[in-house]
């Protein structure tokens, strides 16, 4: 994709963030209109984390994701239409409609899967890192986990295993302030997750998750460490979500008055990145508008495709339990 490569990297990041944002805002509307089945956890507001981290990765690096996985998938290069079909449970979905939003995976893109179990994907990512190490490649693996998921034993164990085996893995905590309706003030006792990494010898930093360049730079450092044999790192990224925990589930009564409005007006990572691109002259507003138009079209086409796509063949119910013989 030479054209893509010639674009300024920070504009590519913009495109990624914008794609996630539009994808998610659109899904929110589609869900409200009743057109989307299943459990949909929107990522809007946290785009800088996925976009910043994946900007530091190569195509053949790995990411393991969470239940809130659309952003990671898009940032890792998954096809937006195939994702939209998947979320609608249609044939042609990136997982044939069998996975849905919580299980979007695309191993050809190094996307090891969204995961329905909090921190469930973290050990998988450690395993992909082991695989890279044993096969002698310089691939790096990223494990995304939420602030809530960071309390899971599997996360703590994976930090230890990664340290002991010196795995090329980057743990990315997405601290969005809540686990469902429970605030980090309660479930993290108001603390950062970074010290948990440090405690087991994993270099850990707290990162402003609204600042995509800060995320990318922190990720680049961690990825370089991993690629050069320095082992695991942890990024503790802070960025709250715009929407509720899950579409159709919560009224966000647990969020303070005006919290979301303030978030959108003061901590919109996309607006922050846009302002920077324009201010430092990396991009002109026309250029960004062009990206916006392309993204709008892309997402629109994806929704149109998803609506008209056929359902999976009912025979699919029984395939893929085991490898075909």
């Amino acid at each position, binding site marked *: 994709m030479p054209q893509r490569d010639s674009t300024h990297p920070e504009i590519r990041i913009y495109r990624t963030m914008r794609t996630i944002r539009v994808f998610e805002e659109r899904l929110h509307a589609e869900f409200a209109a009743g057109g989307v089945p299943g*459990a949909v956890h929107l990522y809007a507001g946290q785009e800088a984390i996925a976009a910043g981290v994946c900007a530091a990765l190569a195509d053949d690096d790995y990411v393991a994701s969470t239940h809130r996985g659309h952003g990671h998938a898009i940032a890792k290069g998954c096809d937006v239409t195939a994702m939209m079909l998947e979320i609608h449970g249609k044939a042609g979905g990136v997982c044939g*409609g069998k996975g849905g939003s919580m299980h979007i995976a695309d191993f050809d893109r190094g996307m090891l899967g969204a995961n*329905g*179990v909090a921190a469930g994907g973290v050990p998988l990512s450690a395993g992909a890192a082991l695989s890279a190490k044993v096969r002698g490649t310089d691939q790096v693996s990223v494990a995304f986990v939420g602030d809530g998921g960071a309390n899971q*034993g599997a996360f703590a164990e994976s930090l230890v295993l990664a340290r002991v085996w010196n795995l090329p893995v980057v743990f990315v905590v997405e601290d969005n302030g809540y686990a*469902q*309706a429970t605030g980090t003030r*309660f479930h993290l006792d108001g603390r950062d997750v970074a010290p948990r990494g440090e405690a087991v010898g994993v270099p850990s930093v707290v990162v402003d998750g609204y600042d995509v360049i800060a995320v990318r730079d922190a990720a680049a450092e961690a990825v370089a460490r991993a690629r050069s044999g320095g082992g695991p790192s942890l990024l503790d990224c802070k960025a709250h979500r715009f929407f509720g925990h899950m579409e159709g589930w919560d009224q966000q009564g647990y969020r303070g008055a005006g919290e979301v409005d303030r978030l959108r007006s003061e901590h919109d990572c996309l607006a922050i990145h846009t302002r920077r691109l324009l201010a430092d002259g990396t991009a002109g507003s026309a250029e960004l508008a062009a990206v916006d138009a392309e993204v709008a079209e892309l997402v629109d086409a994806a929704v149109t495709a998803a609506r008209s796509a056929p359902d999976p063949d*009912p025979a699919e119910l*029984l395939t893929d339990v085991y490898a075909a013989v």
Partner: protein
Amino acid sequence: MTRVLTYLQAIGEALAQQMGLDPTVVVFGEDNIGGTGCDGTLGHAWGPTQGLHERFPDRVFDTPITEAAFVGAAVGAAATGLRPVADLLFVDFAGVAFDQVLNQAAKLRYMAAGRAGAPLVLRAMWGAGLRRGAQHSQALYPVFAHIPGLKVVLPSSPADAKGLMAAAIQDPDPVVFFEHKMLYFSRGEVPEEPYVTPLGQAAVVRPGTDCTIVALGRMVQVAQEAAAELAGTGVECEIVDPRTISPLDTETIYASVRRTGHLVVVDEANPRCGAASDIAGLVAQHAFDALRGPVRTVTAPHAPTPFSPVLEDAYAPSAGQVVAAVRATVPYAEQERAS
């Protein structure tokens, strides 16, 4: 003076009443209060614990996402004087707390030669139908029923949900309480006063003479539909709802099979080492002489639950499959004689 509640409300009422009756009952799980916002305001619980915290502020707790720790804490609390009701949310999450169920809760009494026990209830949502995909739709009660020391409860109606929850809380042993997510908003008459539906007593929810259908959980409804359709063609099915899969009221099942001579088991769980084959195997062992034809099981396939609605709708057994199974086991001759 009948009163109608949803299954969800019935469970909530049982929790509230039992907490009122017994000060050692505590309730916890993720968002069981309903969360705490960044400014410290409490949220509202979504499920059966809604409103409980207002009434029992010192005995309802939210937990961090630490199932191994809080299910284990339920065991330790139960062994030292409380009666905890811990909430797994989806039964699928039992995976991350499984040691505490398998090796701690289930075995504590035996390993201590009866000098202690773990009277706890583990609540768990189960079942297909809500488009939640493979990791949020499992049945899994066969796994728990396999484990000696556990009791496993599967209410199919609001009234049973209330009575069985009361029994589970009062039981001296660990009980896994399965709440079918597609039944939460089903409605039925539920007595207002506290009552107990004993664990280990099946209900004959429809009497019949030609074929016994043992159905579990949401499958009781499916069996009812099938039985209604079959009745139209002159085949009268008797439906037995075991209500608890461990302990299992085998006597009621055997007695029914002795009356009808035929058995179909309808079970939403996966088939291998599942509840349907368990019941089929027990009948083949202990009521063989009563059988006038092969046992039939109707279950989910040996496959994870697919996400796509069209696939998921074909996953759990349907009334049509049950009708076909009954027809296959009850010989045509009998069907005609019966009609």
